[in-house]
């Protein structure tokens, strides 16, 4: 026998299940309990940068939209600063950079309003192209899935994370498409859980 390492083990993940809304978005479950729900205002009123909307579907391996997903977003502000003490710089008053949304129970569409993030520092002195970090949980997802949303109208050519994906043709699954609707900038980002065009998910 050798000595025993005294690390604890991470608590195993379990699915969020079909009723995740009760805990994390009770208004959507059909009742009103908290004075304020969390995560509905990502950027706040004072954030600099381009105001955008992000929306999409989560699609399962049968090609059907998943209608009971909860997504969380985590992003830097337009200057590339996260609202956290380990990110260098300041964020605007009211900027949190974190959002939480659920899909529509009938259509599976999800969406949120925010500002477009700026580039952030990468490892080894590199720079990461603007991106929004996404975390996806739902019934049937045993461990929350991490992915990233990049923007088609940004220069993504030197991004170390995209370039680290060996299969070049899979990188496009992380690029949101820009459209304009009624004067609003909308980025479309559909997430495919499985099969043809499966989105790249990361072990972070």
């Amino acid at each position, binding site marked *: 026998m050798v000595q025993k390492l005294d690390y*604890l083990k991470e608590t*195993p993940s379990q699915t969020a299940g079909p009723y995740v809304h009760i805990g994390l978005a009770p208004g959507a479950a059909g009742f009103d309990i908290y004075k304020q729900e969390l995560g509905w205002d990502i950027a706040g009123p004072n954030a600099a940068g381009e105001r955008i909307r992000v929306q999409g579907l989560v699609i399962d391996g049968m090609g059907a939209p998943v209608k009971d997903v909860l997504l969380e977003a985590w992003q830097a502000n337009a200057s590339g600063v996260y609202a956290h003490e380990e990110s260098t710089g300041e964020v605007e008053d009211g900027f949190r950079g*974190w959002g939480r949304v659920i899909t529509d129970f009938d259509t599976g569409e999800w969406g949120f309003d925010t500002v477009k993030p700026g580039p952030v520092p990468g490892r080894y002195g590199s720079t990461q192209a603007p991106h929004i970090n996404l975390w996806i*949980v739902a019934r049937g997802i*045993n461990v929350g899935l991490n992915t990233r949303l990049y923007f088609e109208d940004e220069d993504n050519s030197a991004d170390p994370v995209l370039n*680290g994906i060996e299969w070049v043709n899979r990188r496009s699954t992380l690029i949101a498409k820009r459209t304009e609707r009624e004067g609003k900038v909308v980025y479309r980002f559909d997430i495919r*859980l499985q099969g043809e065009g*499966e989105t790249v998910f990361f072990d972070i």
Partner: protein
Amino acid sequence: MPLKGEFYQRDREWHPKAYTHDYKTSVARSPRQSLISLENTVSEITGPRFGHGDIDPGDNDLIYNYAQSGESAIGERIILHGRVLDENARPVPNTLVEIWQANAGGRYRHKKDTYLAPIDPNFGGCGRTITDENGYYFFRTVKPGAYPWRNWVNSWRPAHIHVSIFGTAFAQRLITQCYFEGDPLIPHCPILKTVPMQEGIEQLTAALDLNATIPLDTIAYKFDIVLRGRRSTLFENRLEGN
């Protein structure tokens, strides 16, 4: 403040696999490609922080947080408490813990739950709190009932409380479920059996805690939660670059 290093990699043999045939919903919702391994950057070592301005003091008392005045939720009164730690056994203070659960009859207050057990008019089924400086949290609630679900024809969930935890970084984000010591449904649950190791199942099972029980009032269960730990120093020159 010295720069701290990367988070320890998630042990993917300890967590459930994405594709777990006997939990049928996972079949069409599990990625088939391997996850792409990503070395931590500032995007992963940061994450949202919450303070007492985000929640109300009574949010952690599910017996009363949705009850009419003078009323309370029906069921076995329990305290669910414990600490949030990291893999280095250090407490994780000031982090948001959110829970949700069925009522004592096994019914969720959710428009998609049609189980015939009644809704308790005085029970909402969700709560939230922020750990103190020692990583400690507690909730007061009623013990949830077991409920049937459509997996096999005769599948029943053991009594459980869903738990969501943030930690200090997006890399630590975790949702899990807490079960209760002695529940005979535990060895039969296809969702719990997605956890590959018996020790992992035990880690998800809260222990009866007679020391924390309030005599003649409330039974207690202890449920410690462990989030990913991290290296204390950076071996690379700098995570953030210059």
